[in-house]
């Protein structure tokens, strides 16, 4: 296991800033002792670790701006961090830099029902937006699986989606306004309650920029009217191919479910062992399909989807309408990542995208890869939009197993690229996949990304060594989940 940096590195540059950081953020807003800094050494991708030079916990946008200005004046890098649930090491700290944590900026400033929007600070947990909007019959549509803890600011940085982004889109489709602190420390307000901001769509380009263009300090998000009816289906198939056929026929029939999730036999086995989800016995694949909208439309779609699943070979289909019943269906799916720990000592979680039409072919190739290498792969994924999350299992006690697992994991990404897909559908590039960017984009494409980055961060201090490949970075290996994230272990968060 390679540690990117340790606390023993020289922190002189950062250390010199501490007195001024304390004046900005207060005594308790600056963490310098090693033990406390160490608690921030990784995000959800625990394999990459670095103890931050100093941690600051600002409470206002002005404090964020002052901290970033200080960094800019002294050429000290900063790394923004929300709740630290990211899975690409996008919030990996810089050993000689400032880790700027937004966790103390967690007020829901306004729920504006008339204008169907909420104004929140970046540290607000995703689910807390929905909780605040629910009494008015609204919710915040992007629902990443870590939504109980992940922050809205982190969602902005990663352009987070979630199981329901198939119908409702990603963070970028819901943000109307952003206050950002630029890498030079300026506080800029973009957009607001009016959905159409004018000039270049900087909001759109900032979302998904992984903290490399600055820090969001205030976010105005659109709220979605909660649907009249929601129905969840669980359909069991004797083969992955049959399940894949069902997905294709649902999509080509013109039905747009809010979610279509798929699990293979190995993932089902893990989920059964972990949470006893009681999925149909003998299933080689299950589909979880959710339909929502006006009651009459949902009823019509439900009949259609049930028929299509049955035509594709489903041997059992269950339907749930009540919240508790629906949660029981989702339980197996939502626990799948953590549950894999029950059947394997270690695993790599991959995030790749293939065109829906290539889904069956790619799944077959993954099976072949697995058979040829002897490395087991559990498949749990967002089938509706072709977003694969293969879990590559290995025993870290066995010499060479990790390297073989990494090869399989990398080969799966190659399959995604080969079929015209993407190296990441939702986890982001971060440190983890920066070196894989050249497999998806050509040198001119990457140079153009860099032109944009340099326009806003000419000195390269905002989350350096993330998102784009650098010589310094690309000696490193892809990420391995050696152990379950503490938040998952404690039941606070789920991963998928």
């Amino acid at each position, binding site marked *: 296991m390679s540690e990117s940096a340790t606390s023993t590195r020289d922190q002189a540059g950062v250390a010199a800033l501490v007195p001024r950081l304390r004046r900005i953020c207060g005594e308790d807003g600056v963490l310098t002792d090693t033990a406390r800094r160490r608690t921030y050494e990784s995000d959800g991708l625990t394999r990459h670790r670095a103890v931050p030079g100093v941690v600051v916990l600002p409470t206002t946008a002005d404090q964020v701006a002052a901290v970033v200005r200080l960094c800019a004046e002294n050429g000290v890098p900063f790394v923004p961090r929300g709740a630290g649930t990211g899975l690409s090491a996008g919030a990996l700290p810089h050993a000689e830099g400032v880790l700027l944590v937004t966790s103390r900026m967690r007020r829901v400033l306004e729920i504006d029902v*008339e204008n169907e929007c909420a104004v929140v600070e970046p540290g607000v947990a995703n689910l807390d937006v929905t909780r605040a909007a629910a009494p008015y*019959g609204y919710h915040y549509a992007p629902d990443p699986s870590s939504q109980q803890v992940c922050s809205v600011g982190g969602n902005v940085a990663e352009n987070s*989606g979630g199981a329901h*982004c198939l119908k409702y*889109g*990603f963070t*970028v*489709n819901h943000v109307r306004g952003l206050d950002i602190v630029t890498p030079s420390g*300026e506080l*800029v307000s*973009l*957009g607001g*309650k*009016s*959905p*159409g901001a*004018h*000039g*270049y*769509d900087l909001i*759109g*380009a900032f979302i*998904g*920029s992984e903290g490399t263009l600055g820090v969001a300090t205030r976010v105005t998000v659109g709220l979605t*009217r909660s*649907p009249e009816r929601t129905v969840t289906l669980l359909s069991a198939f004797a083969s992955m191919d049959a399940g894949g056929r069902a997905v294709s026929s649902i*999509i080509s*029939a*013109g039905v*747009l479910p809010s979610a279509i999730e798929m699990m293979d036999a190995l993932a089902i086995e893990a989920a059964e062992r972990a949470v006893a989800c009681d999925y149909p016995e003998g299933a080689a694949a299950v589909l979880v399909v959710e339909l929502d*909208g*006006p*009651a*009459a*439309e949902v*009823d*019509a779609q439900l009949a259609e989807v049930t028929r299509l699943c049955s035509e594709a070979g489903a041997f059992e289909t269950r339907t749930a309408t009540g919240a508790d019943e629906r949660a029981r269906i989702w339980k197996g799916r939502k626990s799948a990542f953590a549950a894999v720990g029950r059947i394997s000592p270690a695993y790599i979680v991959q995030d790749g995208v*293939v*065109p829906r*039409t290539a889904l069956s072919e790619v799944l077959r190739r993954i099976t072949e890869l697995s058979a040829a290498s002897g490395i087991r792969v559990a498949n749990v994924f967002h089938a509706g*939009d*072709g977003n694969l999350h293969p879990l590559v299992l290995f025993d870290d006690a066995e010499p060479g197993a990790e390297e073989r697992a990494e090869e399989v994991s990398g080969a799966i990404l190659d399959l995604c690229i080969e079929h015209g*897909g*993407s190296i*990441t*559908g939702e*986890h*982001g*590039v971060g440190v983890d996949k920066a070196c894989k960017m050249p497999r*998806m*984009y050509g040198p*001119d*494409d990457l*140079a*153009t*990304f860099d032109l*944009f*980055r340099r*326009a*806003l961060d000419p000195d390269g201090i905002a989350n350096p060594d993330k998102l784009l490949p650098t010589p310094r970075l690309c000696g490193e290996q892809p990420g391995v989940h050696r152990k379950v994230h503490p938040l998952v272990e404690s039941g606070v968060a789920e991963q998928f």
Partner: protein
Amino acid sequence: MTLAGESGTGGRALREGTRADAVGGLVPAHVARPDGTEALGRVMAAAARERLSVVARGNGTALDWGGVPRRLDLLVDTTGLSWIEHIAGDLVVEVGAGTPVAELYGVLAAAGQRLSMDPVRTGGTVGGMVATGVSGPRRLLSGALRDLVIGMTVVRADGVVARSGGRVVKNVAGYDLAKLHTGGLGTLGVVASVALRLHPLPPALRVVGRAMPSREHAERTLAALRRSTVVPSAVELDRPPEGPGHLRVVLEGTPGGVGPRVAETARLLGSDPEVADALPGGWGVLPTEGTLALVSVPPAESVRAAAWVGELSGAVNAAAHVTGSLPAGALYVSFPRGTGAEAVGTVVDGVRSVPDWSMTLLRAEPRVHAAGVDLWGEVPGLPLMRAVKDSFDPGRRLAPGRFAGGI
């Protein structure tokens, strides 16, 4: 000159500009018509070597949008980049910038699919649609144009061909540079092709409409629709100069499902609504003449804004026609042809004086340009936009002056 060698083969690849090619009164010295993305790259590289100012043109339906360019040496005609690659099974299309919008919609419709947003101009190209970036009425379900662009290939000012995004909907690898070019009026690069997310054509469509007897009725109706769960694709106001206007709600879904939604919508609109199973003619298409503006307001204020624009413009004898999506807070203001700069300026100042309201002149008549009316007003983040422009086009040769803040 090098341009001649780089424009590709065929007699139409490079020619001298004529009065018919003028943009804002500027006649370009040359017009190049590259036959593909690579040829476009070579043309742009040659233009860079010769430090030529460049404006891109599709079918020329929106050359009068934005500011008047300060210089124009080379007009790049993109109509040679006309191709459609429809990946029907993935609900994705990749399309050359010079492809006519109508042709794209035709090809998609034949396969039972669509780009689920209504274009505001007829006769334009996909490149022009993207560069102007505005969307028509149906945007409430699947989003506006910017939400449907999933990948883009752009030729930079220096001729480098660069791609961002891809052909899959879910993709967070790299910066979403297409957002900057969508609505960028060709000031950051020349769009060569676009990948778009598609949706199936809904099996059933109904339009429930009613004349609004008063502004208050329209406001109550909008609030009631917001509270309802009928899930409209469009809620479109059409307010002629004499007001108070007509409201149309578009519902799309299944033949069995749409009925109850129509009934509920009709009830919310008030007595005697009209129900049609097709969109009215000219749906969403904006007038091709006269000064045209986009007013953005918080959605709950959109009825008030429409009424106020109507009254303000009426008071200066320039009674404007206001249309637009009420839940999106996006109103198009069409002034009669020949409306003077002073009258336009009065309405612009009035709207911009309200907090959270903005007004952009999408297309201004020459007299409005001549009078120096500010097309954009205050644009938050303008210094950042200038930084982006300087990075992508350091020589400021791409449609200089066409964008906000003289960019």
